């Protein structure tokens, strides 16, 4: 088994002259649940499609289960379960026929597990796929992906269209998969509460770069949101690096800083703030702070950081 089922190195992708990914690199180790986050159009689905060989990269290298994504063998494909955003299934097929097709193409098929899933989801076998609701298509997609007992599960917004109960069932299924030794999940979702619940590592895409790639706990400990009150007007420049976001109003400044450490603490204290309170953040809060358009302070930070 590979230690790193997913390896992405310096991935660049252009669509019709527009850059979507600008040198993305990350690794998903075996047994990890990696949550890939980003705003609409940030490139999450692009990365997933490139990983699975559905899209050629412009530059860079991606590997899945030790094989180059552009040359994945049938065996490797058979070890990866994929739930696509939008749940692309053959619309004109009946459910029964689609199941038969996927079963015929699979390397291993867990009939018992699949049957259990179909019973749970209660999907009609004689209806055409295009006649199913979005949620039912999602369930079917998920069941087909899980039935092959995948070593790697790639989920692109899998709960899109699922109701609350179905979402919960999905999460439990995902955990069931991950509890089997050596299984790995890469998934992207806009429902951050789900991601927060099950992900080990988080990746966040902003402006074509992966700005966050760490465990969830590490993320929460390294990104701090501080409410600072100064005795007089807030200073225009705190001489702090890695400011994620900054808002000030009179004497009050709300500051989000990445990689908070004692040195930055010391720098802040030189301005003798009246108070400095940490505001707890959920993953959703962190995500909003990370992906919000950059303020003036951040822009200067970028200019300073880019100076040789």
């Amino acid at each position, binding site marked *: 088994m590979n230690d790193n089922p997913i390896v992405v190195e310096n991935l660049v992708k252009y669509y019709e002259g527009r850059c979507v990914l*600008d040198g993305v690199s990350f690794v998903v180790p075996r047994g990890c649940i990696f949550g890939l986050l980003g705003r609409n159009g940030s490139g999450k689905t692009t990365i997933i499609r490139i990983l699975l060989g559905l899209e050629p990269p412009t530059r860079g290298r991606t590997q899945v289960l030790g094989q180059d994504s552009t040359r994945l063998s049938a065996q490797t494909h058979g070890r990866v379960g994929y739930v696509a955003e939008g749940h692309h299934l053959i619309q004109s097929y009946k459910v029964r026929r689609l199941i038969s097709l996927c079963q015929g193409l699979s390397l291993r098929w867990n009939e018992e597990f699949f049957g259990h899933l179909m019973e749970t989801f209660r999907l009609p076998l004689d209806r055409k796929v295009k006649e199913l609701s979005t949620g039912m298509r999602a369930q079917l997609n998920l069941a087909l992906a899980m039935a092959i007992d995948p070593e790697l599960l790639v989920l692109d917004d899998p709960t899109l269209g699922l109701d609350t109960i179905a979402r919960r069932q999905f999460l439990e299924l995902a955990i069931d998969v991950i509890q089997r030794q050596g299984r790995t999940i890469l998934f992207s979702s806009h429902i951050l509460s789900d991601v927060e619940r099950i992900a080990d590592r988080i990746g966040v895409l902003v402006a074509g770069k992966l700005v966050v790639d760490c465990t969830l706990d590490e993320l929460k400990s390294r990104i701090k949101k501080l409410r600072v009150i100064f005795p007089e007007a807030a200073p225009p420049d705190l001489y702090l690096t890695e400011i994620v976001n900054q808002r000030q109003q009179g004497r009050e400044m709300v500051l989000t800083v990445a990689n908070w450490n004692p040195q930055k603490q010391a720098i802040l204290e030189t301005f003798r703030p009246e108070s400095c309170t940490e505001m707890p953040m959920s993953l959703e809060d962190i995500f909003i702070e990370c992906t919000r358009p950059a303020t003036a302070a951040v822009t200067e930070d970028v200019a300073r950081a*880019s100076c040789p």
Partner: protein
Amino acid sequence: MRSRSWPPGHWCRILVLLGLFWLRWLVGVWRSNLLPASAREIAVPLSAGQLEPGPTDDPNGTIPYLVHARMLPDYLYAFLGVLPYLQARPPGFGQRSHVYRWDPKPDGLCVYYDAARGQIIQQGIEEVRDEDGTRTFHRFTRYAGPQGIAETPQEELGRFMAPISDGCVLKPQVVYDRTLRKFFAIDWSERTVRQGPPLPDDERHRPVQIRNLWRSPQALDVGVRSASREESHKRSVVAQVLLLERVLVLDASGRIDLLDPQTLELVGVGGALPTPKTLVDVSRSRRLDDITAYTVLPLVRRASAADGEPSYAGLAAAALSREGLALRVEVYDPNGRRVATGDTAIPPHTGWPGGRTPSIPIPSAVAAYSLLPGAQFLTVAKFVLESLHPPVLLLFSHLAGPHLTAAAGCRSLALLPDSFVAMAARRGDTRPAERILLALLYIVPAVFFALFLAWRVDRHGVHTGLPKKTRAAWRMGVLFLGLPAYFTYRLTRPQFALVTCANCGLQRRPDMEKCHRCGTAWVVPELIPPAWRVLGEPEPADERAPTQIPQANPQA
């Protein structure tokens, strides 16, 4: 580049050459249709006296005859591959068939060559009368080899190695074996096989056809008739293919020999296939290769009260040139002396709107290339189409020109046997250096066109950052292979939406690490990522804490 360019390269080559072939064919058909009816047929007048000088038994002196020949309009359609293929193989009359005679009736006669046995086999049903007069029919099979005929296949009969046979209608069946270099006369009814003396093993003796001397008869209509209908009953000379006294044998050089069917020896020269008057003198190539269609009619003086059997009176031969634009008829007397000729031509003083009115007959091929209305346009169109071919193919066409047959001209995709460069190679009235110079002049436009295409390819390669070696390879490829190579490049060239380099402001490819113009590294100015990063090292699976099942979140 090589592995990805090979498939579309072949594709382009085949499709481009196919397209150019059909355009050339259309020009050829159009040119052929320019010829008026008067320029498509010949009537050669001759008298019986021309064929046999001296007193004749014709009390009225000479009775004029006409040897007439006419180009049939289906010429250009008739020579495309499918029809000749199918026509050459039917039993009994296909030139490539080993079945010399075949009667489709259930009890019909069949004579064919069995290559496995090396013997000629006759099968059929014959009637046998018994002693008491009753008639019975029984199926027979007879085997003929160089040494004799038997009812069963026997080694003692010998083997025919590479036989050519006549149409097997007359008795005896005359066969020539190219390996044994002898003529044989097989008399099936007498059960005998006679053989003649061996022919000298030299280039002057290469028989290719016996008795029925024709090729592609669907393109020509040849015959002999009386010049006047009222006198037709007095006709004493007729064309008779089934000649008994002499057998016509066509040699590979175009010479027509006379074979005595009794002694099986060549007893003289009967004539030769005509060389039609084409646009250029083509004496450098073999006559047989230069002729698309021919028909040879032996002439027989019909028996009169005084004579016994009809006697050989000479032959009339008609030949159609390459491209089907010129027809020539030659008539030979019994001694092989040419006594009359005729060529298709635009008659003198023939005028047409906007055209000239020549005072002398203009050969039909020349008129079709330059004088008839529309001829000059078609000649230019032909030249332009030939110039669109790859220069290297034009060069090969010139080098192979004298060796390319007329039939090949009708169905050749790559080489151009009827092109101006090939015509230059076949010219017998010029020196070798002049021929080469002429050919180069014809190839020059194609080379210029290829240079233009190569320049375009190179310019695009610079624009898209192709490596120097790759650009050089494409330039050479397009220079030699012309249009197909250019289309191949268009199909396989890198397809990218170029982006503007932030450093030099020129277009660059996004899949390259550095700008191929200014060499700077990659910068994407439209994306402004934050300066901060929160990156942690991935933990190996065995060092990670076990996954916990999440508790229900009351806020969810």
